[in-house]
């Protein structure tokens, strides 16, 4: 049995406390009135040109049609011309423009700590969920290689409980209008007599309405947590069941059902929780894209926890071929993510329909560095590092590749959420970093204490023996002689 070391426990609790303090601090630093926000804007303007773009961004909101022209005319000449035109048109609006701008920025600043929390929350919740889905897929596929990793995956899914509870809190806060991340939840959006009335969103109100959204959100969390609770309990039961694999078959059947429900709930979750942040925008492959991003991160996390536990001697049955296969999955799904990312981007770029293009125009103009860096981190780097078969079985190579992949997909989630909620007011500072530390602490605490609670080897699984002898033909296992495999 694995023992959750006191050192690691202290470390995770320290992360949770530091993270919680930082999150509290960032909520206190939010401007409490419009005047305070104006002061912040004035400070930004005196700083430089970097923040001046936020001014432009607001104008773009007002002149949606202009954005289309500017969207991807990267050539400097065209860019300047359009910007100039924007300025001229904007100036005719006169005085009340400044007030509108200040209010806009005020809302974005109020969204900042919520969004910072939400990005990390979704990142960790999503990864944990996808570990659960991958685990279910391994049961359904009756794959033998991964059986010795089952307890690692089960332990990781323990993180689903705390992240779901925090998510529930965010959902309740949204329903009670405590946060304003979702523009369609604002007052008067569905009311034709209100100045806030939005006919486009009103047309989607059969799906985008508060009760429906809240019920669906709770339902997703309920489905995932129920399966996790059930499969964890019954997987441990398998160890001692001795009932002619009846428990094993039951787990198989339940996993089949979960995969079905998961595919539906994951897709709808990505519409409700992420795409709903940009209620004017829509993309048909968005659910898959979110899935790919979380899946590659989930496999990286499985590899990390496996490599760590193996280095502590807690996983004697795991050999280099298991690491190799995890790395192969990391590599393959990195490519899969890139494929979906590009398929979504290129179709929108190519057709350049204004209502779709604004999504990328905003991201390309205001988030250029994370938007482009993400492609290097999620595609180019893992491709070059993990292409070689030998590298894939060397733990520290996998760790280097994995760190970049995880950071890249954090940025991916960041670029999905932040532009819609804080727009040009984004930064990576105390709010974002503390949220990350907080959820990392929760992750370490729940995962390793869950791993310590069960036998690290799932003894009752009929494929266990095959998994222990899993050997990828190309790999020379370190610390083994030629007699160990044949």
């Amino acid at each position, binding site marked *: 049995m694995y023992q959750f070391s006191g050192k690691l426990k202290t470390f995770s609790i320290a992360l949770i406390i530091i993270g919680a303090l930082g999150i509290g601090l960032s909520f206190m630093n939010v401007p409490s009135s419009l005047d305070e926000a104006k002061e912040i804007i004035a400070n930004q303007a005196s700083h430089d040109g970097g923040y001046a773009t936020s001014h432009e961004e607001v104008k773009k909101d007002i002149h949606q049609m202009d954005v289309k022209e500017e969207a*991807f*005319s*990267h*050539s400097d000449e065209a860019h300047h011309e359009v910007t100039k035109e924007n300025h001229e048109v904007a100036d005719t609006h006169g005085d009340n423009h400044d007030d509108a701008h200040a209010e806009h920025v005020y809302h974005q600043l109020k969204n900042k700590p919520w969004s910072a929390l939400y990005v990390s929350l979704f990142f960790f919740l999503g990864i944990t969920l996808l570990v659960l889905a991958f685990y279910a897929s391994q049961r359904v596929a009756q794959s033998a290689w991964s059986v010795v990793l089952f307890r690692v995956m089960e332990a990781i899914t323990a993180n689903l409980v705390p992240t779901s509870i925090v998510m529930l809190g965010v959902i309740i806060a949204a329903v009670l209008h405590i946060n304003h991340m979702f523009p369609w939840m604002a007052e008067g959006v569905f009311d034709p007599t209100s100045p806030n009335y939005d006919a486009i969103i009103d047309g989607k109100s059969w799906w985008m309405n508060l009760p429906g959204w809240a019920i669906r959100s709770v339902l997703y969390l309920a489905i995932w947590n129920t399966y996790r609770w059930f499969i964890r309990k019954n997987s441990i039961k398998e160890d001692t069941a001795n009932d002619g694999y009846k428990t094993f078959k039951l787990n198989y059947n339940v996993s089949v059902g979960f995969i079905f429900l998961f595919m539906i709930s994951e897709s709808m979750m990505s519409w409700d929780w992420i795409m709903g942040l940009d209620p004017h925008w829509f993309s048909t492959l968005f659910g898959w894209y979110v899935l790919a991003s979380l899946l590659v991160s989930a496999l990286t996390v499985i590899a990390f926890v496996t490599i760590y536990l193996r280095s502590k001697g807690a996983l004697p049955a795991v050999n280099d071929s298991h690491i190799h296969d995890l790395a192969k999955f990391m590599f393959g799904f990195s490519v899969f993510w890139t494929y979906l990312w*590009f398929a979504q*981007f*290129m179709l929108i*770029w*190519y057709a*350049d329909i204004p209502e779709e293009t604004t999504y990328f125009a905003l991201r390309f103009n205001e988030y250029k560095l994370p938007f482009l860096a993400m492609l290097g981190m999620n595609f180019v780097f893992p491709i070059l590092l993990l*292409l070689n*078969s030998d590298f894939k079985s060397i733990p520290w190579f996998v760790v280097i590749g994995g760190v970049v992949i995880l950071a890249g997909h954090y940025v991916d989630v960041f670029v999905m959420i932040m532009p819609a909620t804080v727009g040009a007011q984004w930064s990576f500072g105390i709010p974002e970093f503390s949220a990350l530390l907080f959820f990392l602490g929760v992750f370490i605490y729940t995962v390793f204490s869950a791993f310590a609670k069960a036998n690290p080897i799932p003894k009752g699984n009929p494929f266990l023996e095959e998994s222990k002898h899993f050997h990828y*033909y190309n790999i020379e296992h370190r610390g083994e002689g*030629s007699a160990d495999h*044949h």
Partner: protein
Amino acid sequence: MESSKVIHAFYNDDEVVLDAVKTVKADGHHIEEVFCPFPVHGLDKAMGLAPTRLAITAFFYGITGLSFAIWMTNYMMIQDWPQDIGGKPSFSWFDNMPAFVPIMFELTVFFAAHLMVITFYMRSRIWPFKEAENPDPRTTDDHFLMEIPVHNNVDELKALLSKTGAVEINVVDKH
């Protein structure tokens, strides 16, 4: 001539031939060739063959294909005749890059795949109308054949091979 003689040892099971290869290698004999009707996992390692470098060549062929695609799209669409086609920005290659990605991908795969296959054919000396080299037709059906060159040690080798489970041992002249 003594050195042109070889021993042909026949086996009828892949596990047996794998163990036989290990025994013969352990006894310090050089194995010229092993003929099998299908791939035997671990045979290359048992014989001590160097790993293939075909994957490395494929990587470089892929880079070649990618470079070719970039050069071609840049020359045709940007340098030679930068027309406005449906409002696509042909001011520079990067402006219009997303439209070229499908071509870049396909040409990378095309070059990597085809040139690697051709490399394989050349290194393995396979081509149409090539005369078959199998010393016994049974090696393409249900027999395995180990070929060992003889250096004044026929009897010793025969004794060793018969111990490894060979079903037939012949000494033949190699031309």
